[in-house]
């Protein structure tokens, strides 16, 4: 059997490649949810938004032959779903966690319902940028194939972190999330801030879905997301409500997910189920190691999950 020239080094390289390929939807969903949660609202329904985004992007790309329009439409669909969630949660006595779960079911179901005609056809995909042109090793070149959405996701994470810290608008979002009374006293319309923050969060998740169906794995089917949106929402807590940490968490999660196929491809084949669970074990272990009862909720918006 011909050994790969990289030998065991192919595993970390594959994990880097996996991080770049797989993490984008996690980045978009978690950064979007980060904004939403900083305004004091939880949207657990982003899994459904992700799937709706994937379906509508694929449908539009198929119909118009223009995948970037698909991305735009996915963002629009996500925006609407986010606004719907915000609108319902704004009613008195309505619980946002439960509504999120309900909307997740609704959006997933609707995507499957409307998406039946798109399972078979092949839609044009978003292209890749070759960042590995300098290398002669094909693995490196393959690993460094990235999509513009990945770049956009990274930029958004940093931009959001900066905006939350340094702009008037960021201050208003944080105020709405930290303390309703103070916000009201300042004349901030908490409802409107949350509506906007939740809608934008939804739009981000929609784009994440478009990445799934139009770039990687790059086709529409019903098993496409299988919980990635839900996991991304959980990563926000893991990242303690910081957009840049959301980015790192997503990359780490993507890299860990590439471990199982990478190990199998160099011949380490036993216990692949256990290796597939690596991202979850790693996340849990990191949380256990870094949390403590005193500072676990440091960074948590004060109004988050407040029972109404």
């Amino acid at each position, binding site marked *: 059997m011909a050994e790969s020239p990289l030998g065991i080094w192919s595993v970390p390289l594959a994990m880097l490649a996996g991080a770049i390929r797989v993490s984008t939807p996690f980045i978009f969903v978690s950064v979007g949810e980060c904004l939403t949660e900083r305004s004091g609202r939880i949207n657990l329904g982003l899994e459904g938004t992700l799937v709706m985004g994937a379906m509508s992007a694929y449908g539009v790309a198929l119909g118009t032959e223009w995948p970037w329009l698909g991305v735009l439409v996915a963002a629009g669909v996500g925006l609407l779903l986010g606004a719907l969630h915000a609108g319902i949660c704004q009613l008195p006595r309505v619980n946002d966690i439960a509504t999120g779960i309900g909307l997740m079911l609704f959006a997933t179901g609707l995507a499957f319902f*409307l998406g039946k005609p798109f399972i078979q056809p092949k839609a044009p995909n978003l292209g890749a940028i070759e960042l590995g042109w300098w290398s002669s090793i094909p693995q490196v070149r393959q690993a460094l194939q990235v999509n513009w959405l990945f770049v956009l996701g990274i930029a958004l994470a940093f931009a959001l972190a900066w905006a939350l810290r340094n702009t008037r608008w960021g201050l208003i979002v944080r105020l709405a999330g930290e303390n309703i009374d103070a916000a009201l006293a300042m004349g901030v319309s908490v409802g409107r801030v949350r509506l906007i923050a939740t809608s934008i969060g939804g739009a981000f998740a929609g784009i994440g879905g478009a990445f799934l169906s139009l770039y990687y794995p790059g086709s529409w089917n019903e098993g496409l997301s299988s919980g990635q949106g839900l996991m991304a929402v959980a990563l926000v807590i893991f990242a303690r409500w910081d957009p840049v940490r959301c980015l790192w968490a997503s990359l780490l999660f993507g890299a860990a997910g590439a471990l199982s196929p990478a190990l199998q491809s160099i011949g380490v084949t036993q216990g692949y189920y256990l290796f597939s669970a690596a991202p979850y074990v790693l996340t849990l272990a990191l949380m256990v190691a870094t949390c403590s009862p005193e500072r676990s909720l440091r960074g948590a918006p004060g109004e988050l999950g407040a029972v109404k």
Partner: protein
Amino acid sequence: MRQAFERIAVPALALLASALLFALLLAAYAQVDPFEAFELMYEGAFGSWFSWQNTLTRAAPLILASLCTALPARLGLVIIGNEGALVLGGLAAAAAGVAMGRAPPLLVQVAMCLSGMLLGGLWIALAGALRQWRGVNETISSLLLTYIAIALMNHFVEGPLRDPESLNKPSTAAIGDANTIGTIPGMDVHWGLAFGVVACLLVYLLQRFTTWGFAMQVIGGNPKTARMMGLDVGRYVILACAAGGAAAGLAGTVEVAAVLGRANASLAVGYGYAGILVAFLARHHPLAIVPVAILLGGISASGGLLQRRLDLPDAAVVVLQGIIFVAILASETLYGRLLPRKQES
């Protein structure tokens, strides 16, 4: 009087609104006569004794699974690890059933239930303990534990515990016909339904009439007050999580002992996730869980008929479930506002 009227009228309004929305989707997009669809749904879910049994069978695992969310919710915890506890409960039950082999069936059945509940309980108690002692958010840890549990189950079913005879559906060895838990006399529904109803009743009585229940209510209302009153919050958190996990573990046990006869990947088909939904929709009230689970069971029971007769996609019923849930949750806002308020002194 006013409250009783609202308890009926508000959900009824929500259901009516969802039916209208769904009808619109059917008529406009799928070009299906909505009345025919509703008639078929009624026929498939509640139209005959056969359909009722179909509905109840589908509701059974959801009742037990939803307690995994509903019980800890009394303390203000959001646990979504139902699926993990259910899957591991099923695995433990199968392992126990296979290990006990030819012991008297009743003994084997009891052992299966206990081991399923034990492992399910421990699994969720772990999430509770991590929250209490390490401050790890229980929602995310229970979700992570679910994925880990499913991986463990698959590993054992396809590795150490695999029965080589199971060929193309990797499974543990069968627990044997003698050890299976049969159906409730007089109906074609397995005992999981009865277990679920009894568990809900028990939880209700515990919550309503015991000091424990009261203490949990206090903690759920305000943990700081509870601590000042000298309540051991940590113990209650872990206990509630363990009890919830045990209920889900029992649901897994019933899947193994009454439906599958062995543990395999069919344990992880989403009963746990549906259970979360049921719990939230029932507002974590143990007595509301049963009718909500039956409603959900009925909708999924009717899905097949919609596919066969009207050529609607399987997702049609999921859309309806989603609409109903969102409508019912949104309708919460109507309580106290439906009738013009009387002058109160």
